[in-house]
């Protein structure tokens, strides 16, 4: 027991590396927040664009969504970080992480929002259009709010899954939680920094998971009436 505590929860090591892990947390929060905003916005915009059913746009959007949902983000991260400098483009670690995760989230979000749009009955569009709202007005005031409502539960899960992937930044030197912890682990020879990292992730994500659960429960109640 003593040994276990010493390995995973050594107070001296904790005190020594807590600041690093905390600053890693800040980095993860910033990148994660930026990814969520950019990815969800882009995904929603693409899904809206798809409601216009312009053949050439649809092909582009579907290809984008399929490719970025199929590719492991780690592969893209390595490709951009180590490959692009070869053609003279040098992006910093955080930028690469942000770009790749945003694109990945945008691809998933587009499909989730599109599924929302697809399940809105045609009569809703006809009601909006026949009252003079036009296609755009009906999209904004009638279809979009309903699509977003349907999309929220799967979207929250996907957002959680993808923001956790900020940990991938550790392979390209982004000083987020995991890289702060692995660096500390190799300096100190103790697993304690890794425990700190796990705790940091819990502190960050458990409230979000919990909030998602509460939201889902409220939704079920309001649907059950």
């Amino acid at each position: 027991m003593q040994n276990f505590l010493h390995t995973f929860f050594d107070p001296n090591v904790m005190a020594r590396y807590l600041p690093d892990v905390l600053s890693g947390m800040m980095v993860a929060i910033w990148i994660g927040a930026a990814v969520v905003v950019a990815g969800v916005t882009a995904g929603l915009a693409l899904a809206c664009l798809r409601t216009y059913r312009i053949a050439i746009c649809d092909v582009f959007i579907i290809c984008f969504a399929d490719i970025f949902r199929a590719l492991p983000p780690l592969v893209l991260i390595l490709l951009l970080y180590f490959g692009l400098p070869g053609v003279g483009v040098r992006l910093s670690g955080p930028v690469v992480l942000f770009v790749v995760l945003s694109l990945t989230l945008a691809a998933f979000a587009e499909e989730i929002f599109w599924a929302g749009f697809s399940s809105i009955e045609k009569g809703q569009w006809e009601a909006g259009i026949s009252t003079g709202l036009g296609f755009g007005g009906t999209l904004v005031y009638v279809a979009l709010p309903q699509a977003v409502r349907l999309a929220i539960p799967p979207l929250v899960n996907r957002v959680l899954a993808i923001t956790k992937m900020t940990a991938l930044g550790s392979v390209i030197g982004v000083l987020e939680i995991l890289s702060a912890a692995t660096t500390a682990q190799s300096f100190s020879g103790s697993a304690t920094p890794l425990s700190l990292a796990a705790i940091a992730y819990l502190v960050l994500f458990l409230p979000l998971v919990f909030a998602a659960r509460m939201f889902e429960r409220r939704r079920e109640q309001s649907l059950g009436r």
Partner: protein
Amino acid sequence: MVSRPMLEIVSLQKCFGDNVILRDINLKVAQGELVFIIGPSGSGKSTMLRCCNRLEEPSGGDVIVDGRNIMSGTRRDLDLMRLKVGMVFQGFHLYPHMSVLNNVTLAQRKAMGRTAEEAKARAMDMLERVGLAHKADAMPAQLSGGQQQRVAIARALALDPLVMLFDEPTSALDPELVGSVLAVMKDLKAKGMTMLVVSHEMGFARETADRVIFMDGGVVVEEGAPDEIFGAPKAERTQAFLSRVTR
């Protein structure tokens, strides 16, 4: 007809691919007239109605509302025309994410440009008229089908339409709820609304319609006063159809 018709359909055609649904429809509806349309399933009644506000794009012919040809003009003209042509669907199609009041004010605010206060006042008047002012804050899912359909009527009326199109407004309703919707339509007619109604409510037609149109095979087969059509139909197809639907 003395005055110019409120709604005029001139050699309207509609095909879906090679499938000719409307061959050559001609119809004039005078101000304040209620024209009732009957015909077998698939005869193109809904399609004709939907062509009257270009929810369905006609393949040929013209539709003239209050002297304006709806087939010409810009997109903006098209949306303005749609304010003037109210449409009520079999399936109500209220917006489920909005209160009854917001269902009725949305297009007033966003398509007509009324202020929130104007729209609300008008909406409350119209809800009053269909007997549902007390449900203004309810959500559509909390209403019965008959109530939902009356809200849908109020939503269309709030836009000050010149013509109202009804596509089987009571077909999705439980029998005991049909009467409330028909009563609202009767009241509308009494107040002088011009109406084009597709329905199977023959009793309502006898009582309220000025004219009955029998459609089949993409044309108007026969038209006349309700007593003529229901009492002594001339065309064989009309006779066959009526004997089927009225037993």
